[in-house]
């Protein structure tokens, strides 16, 4: 195992303040602290070359776990080992072998062109000239950086900056990538580009990737395996498709009618998802699929009927929505 996490716990002390002036005064005199259990007894292991999706609602503990793995946070208890290193010791040899990409405004020198940051990284990561040139060339091609390299970072658009951040984070050719919302705020084309890039990087260097994303499409495109956590606890670790089957209590039935099924109440068969002329999509309880489809075939003017798994992103989205834990995407994440 390249990454081993055993019974990891991370509790934060959070300073509680009552609202208003009086509350401020009270908190000035006596501060109240409360323990927040960001990660509570988490255990998992990841092999070299895996791409693992790290899923969970905001506040589930995803970012906290990534920060522990990166050595930014000391675990409250439990043990963590990555590439044989204990991350929080922050050994140079470890820092040179992974990267953590955490949204915007990370490491690019704001007033200078991105290429200047790259040169600084070349020196402090002690990247050899030939390796640097090869990697920069490769990244420039994959991310289409050529027109951006010489522009001041502060003049780049959000998406352009993200691409440069990603390049700066990968110049030292890390063996492990921790990607926290790498596509947030990007348009669909750019999201697709970054997704393709991560897949290629993984394939070419056998790099290990842990990815969190609000865009389920990222996860579906990249991750065979997912780890789902909620409130700091592990709730699922395994195959993405198996998860969908386990947590989706229904199947998607597509029906093409030979003629309009007027007069029939379709909602009697299942939840009507979409009606488009003679094409209808229904969600049908998984355990009654065969009974209900048989009924439909006998009672309705069906020309064609297919049974499918519902889209994974939708399924997972529903699970979190039903749990009542999906909060604003912009709220602060632990």
């Amino acid at each position, binding site marked *: 195992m390249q990454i081993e996490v055993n019974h990891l716990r991370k509790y*934060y*002390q959070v300073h509680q303040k009552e609202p208003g002036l009086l509350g401020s005064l009270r908190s000035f005199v006596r501060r109240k602290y409360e323990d927040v259990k960001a990660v509570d007894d988490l255990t998992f292991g990841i092999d070299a070359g895996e791409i693992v999706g790290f899923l969970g609602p905001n506040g589930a503990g995803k970012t*906290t776990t990534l920060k522990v793995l990166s*050595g930014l*946070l000391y675990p409250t208890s439990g043990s963590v080992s990555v590439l044989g290193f204990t991350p929080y010791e922050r050994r*140079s040899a470890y820092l040179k072998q992974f990267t*953590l990409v955490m949204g915007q405004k990370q490491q690019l020198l704001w007033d200078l062109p991105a290429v200047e940051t790259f040169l*600084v990284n070349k020196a402090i990561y002690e990247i050899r000239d030939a390796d640097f040139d090869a990697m920069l060339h490769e990244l420039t091609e994959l991310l289409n950086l050529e027109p951006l390299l010489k522009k001041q970072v502060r003049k780049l658009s959000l998406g352009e900056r993200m691409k440069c951040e990603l390049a700066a984070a990968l110049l030292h050719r890390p063996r492990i990538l921790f990607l926290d919302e790498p596509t947030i705020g990007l348009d669909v084309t750019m999201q697709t580009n970054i997704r393709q890039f991560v897949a290629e990087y993984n394939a070419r260097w056998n790099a290990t990737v842990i990815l969190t994303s609000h865009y389920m499409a990222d996860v579906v495109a990249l991750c065979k395996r997912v780890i789902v956590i909620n409130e700091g606890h592990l709730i699922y670790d395994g195959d993405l498709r198996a998860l969908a089957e386990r947590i989706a209590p229904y199947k998607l039935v597509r029906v093409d009618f030979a003629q309009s099924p007027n007069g029939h109440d379709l909602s009697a068969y299942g939840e009507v998802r979409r009606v488009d002329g003679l094409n209808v999509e229904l969600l049908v309880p998984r355990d009654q699929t065969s009974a209900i489809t048989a009924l439909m075939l006998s009672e309705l003017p069906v020309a064609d009927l297919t049974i499918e798994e519902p889209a994974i992103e939708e399924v997972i989205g529903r699970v979190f929505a039903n749990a009542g834990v999906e909060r604003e995407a912009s709220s602060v994440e*632990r």
Partner: protein
Amino acid sequence: MLKKYLALLRASWQGTLEYRASILIYMLLASMPLVSLAVWLSLAADAPIGNYSSADFISYYLALIFARHMTGAWVSHELDYLIRQGLLSPLLLKPINPIHSQIAAHISDKLFRLPLVLTPIAIAALLIPGVHFDLSPLTILLFLLSLALTFAIIFVSTYCVGLLNFWITHAEAVSELWFGLRLLLGGTLAPIDLLPAPIPQLSVYLPFRYTLSFPVEIIIGRVSGGELALGFAVQLVWLAIFIALYRLLWVRGLRAYSAVGA
């Protein structure tokens, strides 16, 4: 390490040039001791004060302004910003201590200022009658050495103040206090030997003299022999103390930073 510093300096230098206009304004601000000089000149118009004539005051303050430009540090503001905005975390992921890029930024700032400060001061020294510096090679060497140590003390102590942001939100108040004491007791408002007893005697052992006054005293030829040796010894001791403090605050601070979520 040299290679890393060259890369950091290269980037810092370009950043410095990017902000040249604002640096010029900061340079005017750092020349504020001219106000103190004006006050002392009007007081010393008729008769010397202590053992300072008008020309002595001018020599003293010209040297002081130069030393101030060459030793100033603003790193506590920088750390305050980095820590409160959570921008320190990405820096901690790099295989180099964040202090080095700050040192590089300060060095590049000094290089930028050097010709801009030295030229007008040299012209003033040549044109104003009675202005005198001790420019023997040995004195210049000692001056540069104490100037470097002065910068090191200011930088490391200011860095320590900045690290307090790990525990208190906005440690700028502490920074102001440290700055104010240095202004008062470090020779900016008045030469230390004009301050009431027992401050001049205590100053030999307190840190403030070594954050500005000491190199100035050397170049205007007011400290020599045993006093000079003692001065260097005390300056080195204070530097060692601040470095030890820095190490302690850095290790403990990272732990505190981690406790609130980095």
